[in-house]
């Protein structure tokens, strides 16, 4: 690793001489795949057209909950141009992303659980023919009672949506206590109790999910799919198709946006794979936008209750968080989401005692799962808004309050997460300065306001989804006589720039240009496994693997060149496509000559590198969700203007500082920050994945309120405010060249900062996301009537929480285990898997 340096500001997009002597890393660059993207040559899944290719369409349930009595496909099968009709009995094996939630079927066999659950597939010569034939499939449904909310799920244990889970319609209950929280509350000068609601939202990637499968000439299977997780799809296909995984090749095409929405193995992927094998011809599917809304896997709606004790100076003495999570109809990542909803509270501020109780219920709606920030934006919203209230009550500036309680670098939290570098204080100071916070907070005219909030996010999940001891990421390099290098890696390009990260690191280590590199990524046959583009893991994990592989190659080449030039190999430098003696720079060879020397000396040159995260000290059950090699930190100030007549909120400007470790490509890093701010703003003000019941005479089905891009409101170019991005760079020892994540963390502070800014502007608390004009008007009416000037939930329903696992925090002598749990080693493999999550 290069020598580390002091933190400094990156002047975004201003090419600069890199102070570390780095030529590629840290320099704003055109990403390696930019040309393909601006010429329309990036081949997305639906851009694949193959000879003899058939098209598939899925028949989806119009009912939110029903038993399938009978399916008659004979008319559809007889329709001219139809090649094949599949039903659940053709692909009956259950699957799911988490080992503990194998609750999905590619086509439902005997029950549908939400509107949009697929029951049959038609494969035809033309897409239109397949559409037409869907109408010819007769399904006899027996309508079942539906559950529309977690509150209903708690009150209605029967009928059960699934036969597994905790009990009734409760999918997962979590109860963890780190230190005696009641003692913490007893020590407090003030106790704050607040309830919040965070509405669900969806990813809305502009690319609709698509997949193409073929039976290879040798009889094996290849599938191209817009997936963020080709490795996990690989495993699901092997299971459901009952084929050796070695005979299946998954190629993740570049995703036209992912945001978590393409991280599950999907029914349509399994359907085209099965059909291609049966028909021995390519089969394609591309979902309609409406279908994408029904596939969902987006942000869980969460009701939260925070009880926090503080001393007069702002120090937190204890925190108790309860969440009620609307999971939708399937498990998806939900067990992990439930843990995540309680995991990261301790990573920003010092919380000496902490209790978390989480409850995820099944409902008859599309399954929720991971969306940018997975499980953590909802409680982050509640925690940060509550801190704003605490600051006001204690008469402390919200920025100063946070500066007093921020966690420090390398701390181990109450729940045993080991932090890496923590530059949250610097983030706060920076946004306070550049936003002119001190001159604005509580000082702007009525209708204008500012809000400040912070967040943290993991740089890669510390544990894989399924239990194994293998690396999380691998990279293979082939050194060519031409001087070119090929990178092989399972990492998946979803727009975030993972290909550029790999190329940048390899080019930097070997002193070549990224244009000298070819990338073969996202292909389960060509490259070593990378677990996927989720949990902000690729830069750190695939990046470290690439760094290791490049260093190994460099060592081989250096040995050969040192022999040839008769200089010690430690003196060789690799810069500008040359390998030379640092003591006599004119003495050297070109990089190409160097590779040839090495090949002549040692034979064909290829190297590998891999990365496995460090072991986490969180040994208790559930401690597998939340650990990360290191965490990113963000602080944001949002300025709003609220129209008191209409409640309409406009956002003129946002300032955000992000603790990134090091920006490998500052142009891309800034893009990730701004994109996160944008998406956070959408969630804060308008985005809602909302459902409604149709009238009784129209089936009474629980349908999406607006499954279209037009009605699902998201910010346009007209809504986007000016954003001032400050990158705080103190290289973290865990990341390649010191890099930490940037793709998700900067989204998190936006929603609470908006809500607090609205309060600063017009004096009403909107404790619910999104902050809509309607809610502001209701709260303003309350204010006018002299009542509590607030809009938000007032009640958290009763849940039968289990006895919490009691884990003494590090400062109470805890060793990371629960004192009231049987030793982990005695637990079954399945229970072990339960704690492993993305």
């Amino acid at each position, binding site marked *: 690793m290069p020598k580390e340096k002091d933190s400094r500001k990156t002047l975004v997009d201003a090419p600069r001489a890199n102070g570390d002597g780095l030529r590629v890393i840290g320099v704003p660059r055109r990403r390696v795949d930019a040309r393909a993207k*601006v010429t329309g040559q990036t081949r997305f899944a639906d851009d694949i057209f193959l000879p003899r290719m058939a098209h598939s369409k899925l028949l989806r349930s119009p009912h939110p909950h029903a038993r399938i009595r009978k399916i008659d496909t004979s008319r559809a099968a007889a329709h001219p141009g139809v090649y094949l009709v599949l039903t659940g009995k053709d692909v009956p094996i259950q699957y799911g992303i988490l080992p503990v939630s194998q609750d999905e079927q590619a086509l439902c066999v005997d029950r549908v659980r939400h509107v949009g659950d697929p029951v049959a597939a038609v494969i035809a010569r033309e897409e239109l023919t397949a559409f037409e034939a869907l109408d010819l499939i007769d399904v006899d449904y027996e309508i079942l009672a539906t559950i529309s909310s977690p509150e209903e799920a708690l009150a209605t244990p029967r009928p059960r949506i699934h036969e597994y889970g905790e009990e009734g319609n409760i999918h997962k209950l979590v109860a963890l206590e780190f230190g005696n929280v009641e003692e913490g509350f007893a020590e407090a000068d003030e106790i704050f109790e607040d309830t919040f609601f965070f509405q669900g939202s969806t*990813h809305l990637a502009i690319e609709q999910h698509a997949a193409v499968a073929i039976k290879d000439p040798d009889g094996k299977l290849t599938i191209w799919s817009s997936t963020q997780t080709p490795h996990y799809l690989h495993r699901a296909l092997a299971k459901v198709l009952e084929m050796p995984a070695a005979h299946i090749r998954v190629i993740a095409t570049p995703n036209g946006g992912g945001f978590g929405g393409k991280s599950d193995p999907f029914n349509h992927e399994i359907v085209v794979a099965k059909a291609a094998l049966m028909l021995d011809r390519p089969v394609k599917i591309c979902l309609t936008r409406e279908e994408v809304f029904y596939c969902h896997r987006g942000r869980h709606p969460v009701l939260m209750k925070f009880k926090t004790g503080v001393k007069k100076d702002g120090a937190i003495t204890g925190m108790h968080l309860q969440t009620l999570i609307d999971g939708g109809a399937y498990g998806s990542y939900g067990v992990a989401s439930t843990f995540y909803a309680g995991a990261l509270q301790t990573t920003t501020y010092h919380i000496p005692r902490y209790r978390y109780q989480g409850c995820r219920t099944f409902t008859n709606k599309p399954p929720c799962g991971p969306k940018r920030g997975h499980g953590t934006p909802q409680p982050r919203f509640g925690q940060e808004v509550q801190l704003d209230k605490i600051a006001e009550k204690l008469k402390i500036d919200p920025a100063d309050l946070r500066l007093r309680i921020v966690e420090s670098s390398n701390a181990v939290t109450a729940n045993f997460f080991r932090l890496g570098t923590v530059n949250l204080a610097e983030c706060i100071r920076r946004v306070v300065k550049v936003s002119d916070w001190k001159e604005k907070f509580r000082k702007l005219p009525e209708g204008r306001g500012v809000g400040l909030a912070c967040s943290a996010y993991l740089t890669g999940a510390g544990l894989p989804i399924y239990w194994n001891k293998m690396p999380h990421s691998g990279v293979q390099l082939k050194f060519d006589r031409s001087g070119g290098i090929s990178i092989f890696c399972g990492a998946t390009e979803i727009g975030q720039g993972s290909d550029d990260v790999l190329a940048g690191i390899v080019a930097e280590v070997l002193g070549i240009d990224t244009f000298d590199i070819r990338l073969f990524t996202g292909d389960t046959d060509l490259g070593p496994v990378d677990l996927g583009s989720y949990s902000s893991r690729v830069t750190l994990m695939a990046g470290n693997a690439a760094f290791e592989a490049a260093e190994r190659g460099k060592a081989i080449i250096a040995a050969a060149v040192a022999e040839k030039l008769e200089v010690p190999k430690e003196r060789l430098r690799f810069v500008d496509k040359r390998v030379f003696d640092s003591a006599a720079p004119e003495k050297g060879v070109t990089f190409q000559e160097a590779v040839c020397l090495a090949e002549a000396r040692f034979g064909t040159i290829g190297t590998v590198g891999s990365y496995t995260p460090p072991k986490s000290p969180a040994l208790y059950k559930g401690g597998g969700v939340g650990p990360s090699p290191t965490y990113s930190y963000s602080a944001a100030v949002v300025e709003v203007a609220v129209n008191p007549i209409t409640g309409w909120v406009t956002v003129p400007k946002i300032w955000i500082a992000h603790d990134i470790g090091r920006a490998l490509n500052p142009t891309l890093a800034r893009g990730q920050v701004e994109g996160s701010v944008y998406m956070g703003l959408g969630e804060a003000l308008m985005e809602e994945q909302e459902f409604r019941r149709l009238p009784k005479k129209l089936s009474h089905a629980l349908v999406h309120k607006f499954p279209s891009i037009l009605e699902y409101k998201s910010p346009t170019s007209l809504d986007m405010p000016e954003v001032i991005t400050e990158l705080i760079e103190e290289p973290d020892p865990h990341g390649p060249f010191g890099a930490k994540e940037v793709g998700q963390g900067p989204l998190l502070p936006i929603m609470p900062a908006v809500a607090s800014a609205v309060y600063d502007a017009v004096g009403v608390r909107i404790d619910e996301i999104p902050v809509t004009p309607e809610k502001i008007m209701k709260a303003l009416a309350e204010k006018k009537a002299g009542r509590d000037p607030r809009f938000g939930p007032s009640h958290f329903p009763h849940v039968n929480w289990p006895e919490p696992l009691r884990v003494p925090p590090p400062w109470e002598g805890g060793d990371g285990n629960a004192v009231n749990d049987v030793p982990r080693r005695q637990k079954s493999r399945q229970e072990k898997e339960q704690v492993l999550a993305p």
Partner: protein
Amino acid sequence: MTTLPTESQKSAQIRFTLNGEETDVSFAPYKTLLEVLREDLGHTGTKHGCELGECGACAVLLNGKPVLSCLVLALDCGGTEVLTVEGLGEGGNLHPLQDAFADLGAAQCGYCTPAILVTAKALLDLNPHPSRDQIREAISGNLCRCTGYLQIFEAVEAAMLKIADQRKSVTQIPG
């Protein structure tokens, strides 16, 4: 220029100019311009995100004006000039907009990019020096979920300056 199908025929035909080339194509008469471009002419650079005219990902220039190709029947395009992302560059060189988008991070996943590029070209053709607000307005029908739009605005502005420079240098060449 346009041949409508008879009862027994399954395809219609049009002749139009695609990216400067005279092009004949026959297709199922119900198809949109988007479908004919992608499926019958292999021009997959133009994308789709809804096929309902909501996302803007399928924008192309029809006689120089941005249209949503998912809402245009191909049968109506006989005799027209259509420009897609594939026709933006000239002589093997990228259009200044493409260069700027590539350099300044305006394309992340790249899915909405082709449509935004042609829409921006239409803007600059009409108004060589648009303000930031005019750029915002021009691409307000093109949704991008990755960038937050700011690097797109900056790229359009950078291209605008480059195009102006090129024009200046062309006019400065002595007679």
